[in-house]
């Protein structure tokens, strides 16, 4: 029995997307996914299952989208090989920010406008009282 599985590369790993028993349909759908641009990389795997031996053979028959290099890099491999203690030492210590006295807070300019408003209100009140007295 032969199956064709479409796999998409997402969140850093290959995941099964869909399965078909027709090579043409699988390739057609894979191309549609590539054209859609939703996933960065797509591949189609042909899996042949031998009932007599109970074994499967898998081969890639299509790759689309951006090239994905999911092999470990030399840097990541070296990082993994370090013991935890050494890994800690190898990592540079983050710089501590220097402690300075906080700058003095500036007074907000509210006193003057409030004083002006109070003065205007007082003048207004006086004028009203004066008008009542003389009329």
């Amino acid at each position, binding site marked *: 029995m032969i199956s064709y599985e479409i796999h998409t590369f997402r969140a850093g790993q290959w995941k*099964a*997307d*869909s*399965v*078909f*028993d*027709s090579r*043409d*349909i699988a390739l*057609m*759908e894979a191309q*549609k996914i590539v054209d859609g641009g939703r996933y960065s990389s797509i591949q189609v795997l042909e899996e042949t299952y031998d009932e007599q031996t109970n074994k499967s053979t898998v081969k890639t028959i299509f790759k689309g989208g951006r090239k994905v290099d999911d092999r470990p890099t030399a840097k990541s491999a070296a990082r993994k090989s370090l013991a935890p203690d050494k890994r800690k030492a190898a990592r540079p210590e983050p710089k501590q920010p220097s402690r300075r006295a906080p700058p003095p807070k500036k007074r907000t300019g509210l006193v003057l406008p409030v004083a002006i408003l109070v003065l205007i209100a007082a003048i207004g009140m006086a004028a009203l009282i004066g008008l009542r007295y003389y009329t």
Partner: protein
Amino acid sequence: MERVPEGTERTEITEEMPQGMERRLVLRLLGHWRSLCKESEYPSFFDLDPQSIPDIWKNCFVLEIFPDGSEPRFRAMGDILATSIDQSLINQPISAATRKSLPGVAISFLDEVLRKGVPISRGDEYFKDDGTKVLYRSILLPMSDDGETVSGILGAVNCREVQEG
């Protein structure tokens, strides 16, 4: 599988079915399913509107999958599928669908879909009681109420009869 009556001429189908309506049906439904998924792993039945896919819906059906593992049941069926069987399968368990019926053959790989959790499309053939060969292609699409756990299946099946003799 029932034996074909003696004397029937056998026509060997060496090519796959022509790229006509049959394949486009399952792929169109798959495309619609993908559009409903958005950012989730699976779409919800709440987002499925049969009126938005009137041509496809005629060949569709819906299964409810129960979390306790009890037998899935048919919950909805399009007109073409419904008329292809003698008795309604709505609210019936999947075991009620005979193997020589379109709904019955369409769900033959349901276990695989539930195990892998991805859409699967398969095609095959079966013989009706009168010896007519029926070529079909179906697709089963996992659906979910919470976007993660499969709680239902949206399926579709299309077929072509090959008259022999």
